[in-house]
């Protein structure tokens, strides 16, 4: 999607949510996570984790173009919050710049969804 809307580029964040069998939610996130969209990012993740009957939340970051260190902090908080509730939380399809920032901050292994679970 063209970020230049009416000549004024603005960050945007969009989600697509799918409920799979067994209480699994797949949340695909597109756009950019920066200080202006970080709050929406956090609220959406929290909402997904607190939905009744959820056992696992997978965050698909394939369509994500940008995430800053604050956005990574949101992911770590979501991971902790999920743990406290006994819910599995993990990222799938972290490529390019998203994977790079997670690796630089040393949290990729912690956040990547374990496959086959």
């Amino acid at each position, binding site marked *: 999607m063209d970020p230049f809307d009416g000549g004024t580029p603005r960050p945007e964040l969009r989600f697509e949510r799918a409920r799979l069998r067994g209480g699994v939610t797949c949340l695909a996130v597109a756009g950019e996570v920066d200080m202006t969209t970080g709050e929406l990012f956090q609220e959406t993740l929290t909402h997904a984790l607190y939905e009744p009957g959820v056992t696992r939340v997978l965050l698909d970051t394939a369509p994500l173009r*940008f995430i800053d260190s604050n956005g990574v902090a949101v992911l770590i908080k979501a991971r902790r919050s999920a743990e406290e509730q006994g819910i599995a939380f993990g990222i799938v399809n972290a490529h390019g710049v998203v994977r790079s920032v997670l690796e630089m901050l040393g949290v990729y292994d912690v956040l990547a969804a374990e496959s086959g679970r």
Partner: protein
Amino acid sequence: MAGTPLGGLPPTAPESGALLDRKFDRSSLAALRNELSRYAAANGLTDLALANFVLAVNEITTNAVRYAGGQGQLRLWRNGDELWCQVVDDGHGIPRRHLEQSRNRDPAHVSGHGLWLARHICAGFEIETGRASGTRVLLRYALPSAARSTDGSV
């Protein structure tokens, strides 16, 4: 900036030599990333090297918006085989403990890694900050050798 004591930091770019010179605030952070990306790409940065440069600069501009009065000024210029990016704000400076975390971060902390990340990504990271003088950060970023003959105009 002439006449301002700037310690060990190299001089700012000459007004006419800057590729990009922008005031920014919260509403223009994303636009600034796009613009910065265009100029950095025109100077030969690609893929992850380009993305990481934009990420590093964004951490510094975000700090200015978040902690230093909501605005700042970014200047980008080319110096030989490097891109130099200076971000200036007139906030109340960065506390000493945060500066310390930019060198030795504690991975157990959930947040506060922005300065460390910028320092980690860039070939050079210099900072001058004070309660009365605001903060000036200079990031130096190496261009790939293949790009060193381009003129960098957009």
